[in-house]
């Protein structure tokens, strides 16, 4: 297991390096003076010179890259162009909101979707299965940012049941929870359908395997066969799917934060893009991407924990 962990970790590090390379090159691949590009047409000449100095833009490219990597490793992602605050500071203030939203969104989707998929698989072609099927396809199809907008319209603007803006009073957990409801609902909705379908398909496939028939032939209780044997194997591709799907979840979160004005990483990136605050954009994108890579790594490790064949395949 340790060997597998090391290998996967190594792979993730390589990918992060590649991501850093891409982010770094973006600035330099676009024709023109990097400082002007980063700060936009409305920047003052002083701001441009200051930026150029900060980014060491007079040095050779490879040197700049090494400096950048070095900085990233020690946690220095640069400073905000306008306020001179540390980017890491700014991100740190807001990452909590993003993490809670992502967790809440995926969390409720898993709590509802996985059991639904299981039930549908165990009782195929019943009304429960058919309804789950239709609802699943329906929820998958609806774009999440549209759900955000319409949820905002219906529950916040028209019915006024839930707040429309912000993340709630700091320190007031109940208020923050209430502010979490609509955005978490919006980003999780399509995942409910997705998970239900995936689990159902996976379970049906596993239930057709000979070893399930064998377990039943040994007289094992149905609950044990379904959960201890079938689901145990069927959940594996679902975990992979969840891990890889977090990228899409993060995208949905960006939209939700913008629409509901939650001060998370997504909104930070968007605002910084609009304000031409490139170091913040670069830093926040790096953090968001690293978060995604870390989640994929975790899901792979979880699978290795559950499936002995994976952790021995090197």
């Amino acid at each position, binding site marked *: 297991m340790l060997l597998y962990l090391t290998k996967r970790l190594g792979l993730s590090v390589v990918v992060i390096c590649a991501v850093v390379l891409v982010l770094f090159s973006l600035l330099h691949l676009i024709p023109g003076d990097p400082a002007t590009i980063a700060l936009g047409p409305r920047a003052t000449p002083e701001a441009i010179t200051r930026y150029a100095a900060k980014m060491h833009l007079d040095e050779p490219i490879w040197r700049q890259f090494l400096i950048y990597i070095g900085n990233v490793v020690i946690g220095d992602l640069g400073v905000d162009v306008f306020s001179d605050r540390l980017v890491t500071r700014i991100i740190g203030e807001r990452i909590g909101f993003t993490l809670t939203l992502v967790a809440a969104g995926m969390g409720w989707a898993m709590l509802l979707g996985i059991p639904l998929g299981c039930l549908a698989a165990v009782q195929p072609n019943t009304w429960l299965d058919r309804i789950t099927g239709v609802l699943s396809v329906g929820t998958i199809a609806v774009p999440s940012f549209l759900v955000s907008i319409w949820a905002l319209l219906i529950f916040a603007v028209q019915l006024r049941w839930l707040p429309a803006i912000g993340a709630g009073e700091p320190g007031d957990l109940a208020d923050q929870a209430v502010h979490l409801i609509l955005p978490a609902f919006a980003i999780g909705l399509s995942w409910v359908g997705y998970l239900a379908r995936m689990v159902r398909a996976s379970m049906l496939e596993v239930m057709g395997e000979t070893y399930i028939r064998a377990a039943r032939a040994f*007289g094992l209780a149905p609950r044990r066969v379904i959960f201890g044997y079938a689901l145990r194997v069927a959940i594996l591709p679902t975990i992979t799917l969840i891990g890889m799907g977090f990228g899409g979840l993060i995208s949905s979160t960006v939209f939700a934060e913008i629409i509901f004005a939650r001060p998370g990483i997504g909104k930070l990136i968007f605002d910084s893009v609009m304000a031409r605050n490139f170091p913040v954009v670069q830093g926040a994108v790096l953090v968001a991407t690293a978060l995604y890579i870390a989640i994929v790594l975790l899901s792979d490790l979880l699978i290795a924990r559950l499936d002995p064949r994976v952790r021995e395949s090197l």
Partner: protein
Amino acid sequence: MLLDIRNLSVEFRTPRGRVKALRDISFPIRRNRIIGIVGESGSGKSTVLWAIMGLLAGNAEVTGGEILFEDRDMLRFDEAGLRAARGEEISIVFQDPMTSQIPVLTYARQMFDILYRRPKLSADDKRRMAVEMMKKVGIPDPEHRIAQYPHHFSGGMRQRAGIGMALLTGPKLLLGDEPTTALDVTMEAQIIHLLQELQGEFDATIAVVSHNLGLIAELCDDVVVLYAGEVVETGDVHSIFHDPQHPYTRALLECDPARIRERSDKLPVIPGDIPDLVRLRPGCIYAPRCQRAMPVCKTTPPPRAATEVGDATCHLLAGPHRDADWPPPADVPTVRTGLGEPAAAVKSIAPEPVLAVDDLNVRFRTVGVLRARLRGIDDPFVDGVLDVSLSVRPGETVGLVGESGSGKTTLGRAVLNLLTSHRGTIAFEGREIRNMPEGRFKPFRRDMAMMFQDPVGSLSPRKSVRALIVEPFQIHGITGIDLDDEAERLADMVHLPRPLLSRYPHELSGGQARRVGVARALALHPKLIIADEPTAGLDVSVQGEILNLMADLQAEHGLGYLIITHNLPVVRHIADRLAIMYLGRIVEQGDAEAIFRHPAHPYTQALVDGVPQPDPDRRRAHVSISGEVPSLLQRPAGCDFAARCPYVQALCRQEKPAHSTMRDGRIHACHFPLA
């Protein structure tokens, strides 16, 4: 009587209609005896087992009958009742140990789960029981191995574990669904022996389903013969094998190559195919294929004729059409031999070999370059094929025999340049072709063709049969011919009905797909055909068709065949010479009949003795060989076979035997040959 099946009928709902898989099946399973349920594909033999367990597929329906287990009708059990019986009173051993054990749980965990209905047992007790059982079924070091996962066990070990799991609760009835079909010959012998031992020890009743007549004769006390969903004959094992009453039973026995004492080039065949079970014709189910069918057989169902020890349903045995001359004496054949004319008495074999392999070596890399360097491994290779020399002459059939892991398939692929080999020569008609670049080798592919083991899987799924058969012409850019004509010519040559030309591979039966494979191989008039397991998956009663076809084609075109197989009874009849492989080396080579009568190498003897004979009088008293094939990664010093050889001596463990030639021309690799 432990289990009494009465008038059981099962149907399956399919898009084509209702398949009447079992019709009015009745037979008893007697206590403390082993009963064998014999049948070929389509007989419904496995369906019987699933009906007993209550584990039929979702589209199955029991339409009549009773299954009385100790006087209770199992078909009327509710789910809880069935579950109570499963595992505790009736247990089953599955055919393929690779797919019937869950890969993500340890054996300990799986066995614990099986014992879940014993609340009085503590965890320690359960573990002790499990380890005891592993020991009983012959798994070494059970204390440690029980905590391992199935993929750590070899095939034979997995099947032993499967048997252990089935017997763990001490069931009254043990069912076996082709328990040895997925195993090698030497492992099969060990499992048969294990089952016999366990039956004695546990006083169990066993019911085994199989198409392998040798297994049935060796293991069983009573026999039930199924054909296309009906019981055609029952009896005890001696009467069935020595005095079969029903024409099908008789024909089946005659077709088994292991029963044919004299080597014959053409094998008997039961012509035709199993009938359509959706639209059944009136009369006897076997009538369309029966050599003795009378007009009444096609209109009226046959009567049951009771014998002292069983019964058979045939018009020849009872009723107004009873024939006193039936059955004829044992030496009179009732099935025709082959399709065309009988083979020429003497085969014409040219002297110059078409294929000559010398000292061939094929190595496989075990770890990547980087990891090898990191771990300090000098030689990260294993020898899949080691110093192999053999030859095939035009008109000759050479059988390459070995069990799994012997390297026979690797050798076949290396000869066809589908793998790189590392040393040695491969000469085709005298020209060196080993590792020839594909560009230069391509013309040779017209002269050497391969037939693959999986008949349907070796055909590209989205191409029609016609497209597949003419593809060789397209690949080699042959112009000036009418492709459709060629397709039809080849289809006729292999007796493939022309309408099938427009079908797709997944719509063909195994036998039909195999014939497509033959047609493709023949398209460009090759001189050598390498056939990988040509009879795999074919019923004994029809495998003769493909083999006789191949024999006819050989006589007509002077083809050389290299047949790769582990099926010894078959290869004895079709091969002129044999090469026996073990762990990548040839351990014996020479005239096929001589090898069978007087094997020189102990492994050959183990193989020959290891095949269960379809004759209950020729049961083996002891197992000819124990243990498993060693891993290629740990090739023993000294003779590869030393660890399992019953005649092993000190020298064998130290020094690898070189190939030496005997007086009669046979080559072997043994320090102390048996002949």
